[in-house]
């Protein structure tokens, strides 16, 4: 009787963990991350992952450059026009195995561009989480690149370091324009920051 109970207890403990490990390996096919989110954050804050237009211009004018240019737009848009030497991987199909294999080529940096910088940035984060290293993005959309870099004979200097994240307005001009800027700044430095309730809860125990 006692023997049976011990056997059952040990078997349950064993089955839970062994079953979970085996399940996690089956689950691996449904794309498990290779990098934790803090590691991805470190990667994107450490290295320069945006490609400026000057570098891109030089690369595009080189013969046999070591750069994998990836177009994330739909196949129809790609068929109409695309950057020289780029391959097409639609963002909807980026998680397919053959596409991931294309992106994972060793010693070959890849640059992404899309119909907007938002999409390419999201693709960058997702692919870095899945363990694709050596990825960069071209800031701006394909339309910006085409208009400012390729259509003219020489690139527009104002767009060398273009990034759609830059502020296009002096926001303070519109919000409460009677007040001077200095007053607003003073107000912030003199307010005492309100701390949300996050007191440590001590859970004590013992035997």
């Amino acid at each position, binding site marked *: 009787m006692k*023997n049976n109970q*011990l*056997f059952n*207890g*040990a*078997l349950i*403990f*064993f089955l839970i*963990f*062994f079953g*979970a*490990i085996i399940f*996690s390996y089956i*689950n691996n096919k*449904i*794309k*498990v*991350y*290779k*990098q*934790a989110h*803090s*590691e*991805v*954050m470190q990667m994107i804050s450490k290295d320069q992952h945006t490609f400026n237009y000057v570098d891109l211009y030089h690369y595009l004018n080189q013969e046999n450059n070591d750069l994998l240019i990836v177009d994330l737009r739909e196949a129809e848009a790609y068929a109409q026009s695309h950057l020289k030497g780029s391959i097409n991987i639609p*963002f909807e199909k*980026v*998680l397919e195995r053959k596409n991931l294999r294309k992106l994972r080529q060793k010693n070959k940096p890849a640059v992404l561009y899309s119909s907007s*910088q*938002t999409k390419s*940035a*999201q693709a960058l*984060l*997702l692919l870095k*989480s899945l363990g694709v290293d050596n990825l960069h993005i071209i800031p701006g959309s394909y339309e910006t690149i085409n208009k400012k870099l390729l259509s003219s004979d020489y690139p527009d200097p104002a767009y060398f370091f273009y990034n759609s*994240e*830059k*502020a*296009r*307005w002096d*926001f*303070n001009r*519109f*919000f*409460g*324009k009677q007040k001077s800027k200095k007053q607003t700044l003073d107000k*912030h430095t003199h307010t005492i*920051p*309100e*701390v*949300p*309730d*996050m007191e*440590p*809860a*001590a*859970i*004590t125990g*013992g*035997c």
Partner: protein
Amino acid sequence: MGPLIPQGIISGELNFFFAFIIGLAFGFILEQAGFSTSRKLAGVFYGYDFVVLKVFFTAGITAATAMFFMKYLGWIDFNFLYINPLYVWSAIIGGVIMGVGFIMGGFCPGTSFAAAVIGKIDAIVFIAGMFLGIFIFGTFYPTFEPIHLGHFLGNVFIHDTLGIKQSWFLFFLIFMALIAFAVTQKIENNASRFKELLYAEKVNLRWPTFFIIVLALTAVIIPQKRASFVYEPTATALHKEILSSDRYVKYDKAAFSIINKPGDMQFIDVRSREAFENFHLPGAIHIPLHKFTDKNVKVFINELNATPVLYANASPLADKAWFFARRSGIKNVKVLEGGLNHFFDKIFTEHQWEETTDIEVLSYMRFINRARDYFLKDHYESIPSKKEPHELPTPQTREIAGGC
């Protein structure tokens, strides 16, 4: 319930309920294992009964194995756990005092309560002595302080100190436990005087031993690196979420919320500190992008009453923050579509309204004009905003103290 409360899965009040249940179970098991008898406890030191060693070693390796595999499977995030810091002198002296008290009294603190409840007088005296000791320590704390806080080593792991992998440490621990069980069983069998007292029937430990050895070997064999946690959406699910535009809040919704329902949306500025101080939406909080992997950001956003809306100058930065928020397991985070640039484009540029009788277009037109006047004339200062803009406090770990 260490990792469950900081992650917001259960509330802090429920903690007391679980403490009650776990306390009942603990007391039941102590009494059921015979730990309220000081003879049984003291048997370890006289070599006729090693049940204390067996029970606590078993508990230790069970917990260690469970922690290892739960971490491996992503069920537990070690960043959320509080690890007791090591003060070498207080650990050594405390251990000696505890051991001497154990031999003399025949109880350890927890079992003395179990024994006192069933009416043992020696246990009651033991508890009185314990309170006296606590009183003396508290009263003369300034004298003891240099010893109490002496030789601080911080939060150290034994496998780091030994310089081996966590999995190998677990393997050796299980190996050591099994050897200890075998040796103590031999000693018990030789102490024939008490033999008939101990076990009415012989217990076959073949299967539990086999299972724990297999688990120990598995721990060593499996690869160490896994980065998915149980609260994260899988890559496929996250990809789908990125493709759908459910996360976006339109500029007119945001403006409406600022003007009419200030408590409805909590705007979170993910830009740099200078940009935030130069300009921010009314009532906004500043959380820069790199903080989005901190655990206290997760706790903070989960405890908000309003819908959190992330914004930056344009979409990409806010969307990056959204990505990290989703991977930390924060749900219902929204992004201001197009960011501040789009917001200002739509509200402050002069529109060429065409003559129309469409009621929807007319009301939209009226709303945009009203919003422009509102923001230009500094009315937003009168918004009854409870939250002042602030930065998040420094990270805090919730302390989980315990032990036997």
